[in-house]
């Protein structure tokens, strides 16, 4: 099968590291991935271009500096450098700077029902000579027909690939298949359907395999699954699984296993796993980037992070609304104090 892998270690993997990749780490990981045959490597703040902020966390090193450092390494192997941009966070000016620093693919991300925020950024990416892709986040919140309709909006705006993005890790093989199928039917044959998975229900690799089976031509993964919350589909595991199926032939499984073990495993931060909170994220359907914010807010206000995440799910918060997490924690603490007082 002709499937293209985008590795997001240096973008989604920013989340568990609180956006602290250094130039040296970025170059080493980009080199390890490109040398192993990964055709697209994404480098951006975890929340996309312009994401460095008090609300999402400030980048240790400016993302454009990281892009500039990684670009020649990636280009040397004939691979592409991708950036993520969320309209509302990053602007066309950020896109221009990224292109100038060496990015050649722009993935324009919106909530799954807000595709019409993206046309200007998709068009600008095309004008800059970049590949322009659409990225429909929190895809579990839209029924397949709705998601397909939104994918058509991004296609009409110039998107060459449109991703079904399981930001919350809430999808399962049957619900992935239904979405990929609906998108394939709705889009023109030359438009590629993509899938971005998370591992909250332990389905990162499984969902991705199911998406490919259903016709997804572009998929995302990261080394050791390094990514927000429970983490992503693991690049090296996906490569090995696909190798046994005869898919994704250009990937060197041994080199990817080495890169995962030698470059990512030693990182000091907590590795993404399916623990109580990240499982709750997938089950309640909230964005994985909320995990660390919920943990901090929970500690600060003395409430359980699980309760915060469940409440975020009830309020149907979408990607980017991390600023509501402290409010929710504060409200829960007030409510808790009220009921404690009542009991005494």
């Amino acid at each position, binding site marked *: 099968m002709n499937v293209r892998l985008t590795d997001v270690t240096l973008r989604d993997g920013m989340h568990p590291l609180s956006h602290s990749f250094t130039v040296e780490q970025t170059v080493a990981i980009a080199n390890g991935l490109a040398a192993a045959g990964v055709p697209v490597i994404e480098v951006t703040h975890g929340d996309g271009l312009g994401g460095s902020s008090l609300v999402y966390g400030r980048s240790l090193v400016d993302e454009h500096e990281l892009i500039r450092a990684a670009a020649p390494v990636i280009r040397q192997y004939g691979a592409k450098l991708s950036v993520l941009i969320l309209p509302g966070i990053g602007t066309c000016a950020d896109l221009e700077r990224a292109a100038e620093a060496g990015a050649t693919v722009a993935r324009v991300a919106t909530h799954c029902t807000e595709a019409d925020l993206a046309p200007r950024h998709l068009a600008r990416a095309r004008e800059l000579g970049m590949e322009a892709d659409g990225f429909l986040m929190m895809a579990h919140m839209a029924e397949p027909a709705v998601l397909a309709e939104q994918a058509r909006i991004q296609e009409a705006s110039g998107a060459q690939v449109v991703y079904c993005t399981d930001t919350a890790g809430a999808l399962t093989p049957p619900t992935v298949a239904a979405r990929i199928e609906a998108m394939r039917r709705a889009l023109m044959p030359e438009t590629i359907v993509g899938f971005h998975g998370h591992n909250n229900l332990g389905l990162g690799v499984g969902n991705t395999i199911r998406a490919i089976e259903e016709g997804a031509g572009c998929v995302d993964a990261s080394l050791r699954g390094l990514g927000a919350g429970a983490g992503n589909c693991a690049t090296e595991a996906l490569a090995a699984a696909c190798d046994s199926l005869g898919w994704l032939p250009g990937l060197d499984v041994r080199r990817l296993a080495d890169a995962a073990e030698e470059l990512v495993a030693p990182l000091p931060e907590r590795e993404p796993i399916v623990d109580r909170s990240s499982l709750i994220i997938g089950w309640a359907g909230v964005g994985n980037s909320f995990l660390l914010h919920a943990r901090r807010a929970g500690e600060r206000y003395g409430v359980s992070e699980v309760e915060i995440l469940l409440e975020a799910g009830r309020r149907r918060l979408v990607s980017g609304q991390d600023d509501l997490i*402290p409010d929710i924690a504060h409200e829960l603490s007030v409510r808790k104090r009220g009921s404690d007082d009542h009991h005494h």
Partner: protein
Amino acid sequence: MRVIILGTGVAASDLLERLSRFSALDLVASSGEENEFGAVLRDHAPELVFDCTNAVAHAAVVERLLEAAAVVVDLTPAGCGALVVPAVEATIAGVVGTRHVSLATPQAQMAVPLVAALAQVTPVVYAEIVSTTATAAVGVEARCEIDDTIETTVAALRTLGGARVAKAIALVGPGDPPQAMRASLQCLVPAATDRSAAEEAAAAGAAAAACLSPGYRLSVPPAFEPEEHGLLRVSMVAEVVASPPLRNELGGIELLTSAAAALAERFVSTEVTS
């Protein structure tokens, strides 16, 4: 005073409604469409024009508007005129005598009163606003102006709010039922800042904003957290619920139209007294 309101959206109709309360104003509404508005400009010879179209349309016609009228007030996020947040009295003085005035963005109308008040009591090293507007309140045109909204809000936070560095994030929330517009504001100030003075400043800024938009309130008062480099993080949340007949979630529109009406009132009184 002869006034033209350009635009076909909710902002234009709400502004028309607000301005029709002033007997001194002779109001004409225009769609802002090319073929129609040329005739309106010629026949009505306006002294004051309010542009409620969109940022792209505003940039395209502003030269012609300035030829026809003495003062042009822009309600789009184009941000090419002199920025003003009427809830902050000092910013009005800055645009007196200016012919091209910009009301920046709802985000700016929401955050600048708080930042400017804080800047009165302590240097604001950095200000960051994260706004969420309900999907139902963001029309097709506004969706294409999201970059203008960010850039003009940043400019207003710096020039009118007094923040040395600013950042704006503008989110659209699909929650159902649609929620009121909200904005989280985080500022970095020197650690030695007097916290009670900062709290009082924020409350005063919010009260000034609420004078124009009664549904404006500080839903979470300032909280303080020490930061690195001898700084203090001040976080607060503001919310604005639109007044009837506007739907709840249209607080951002009301921030602009009530600000525009406040300016109109000022122009009328200046004309009468001068």
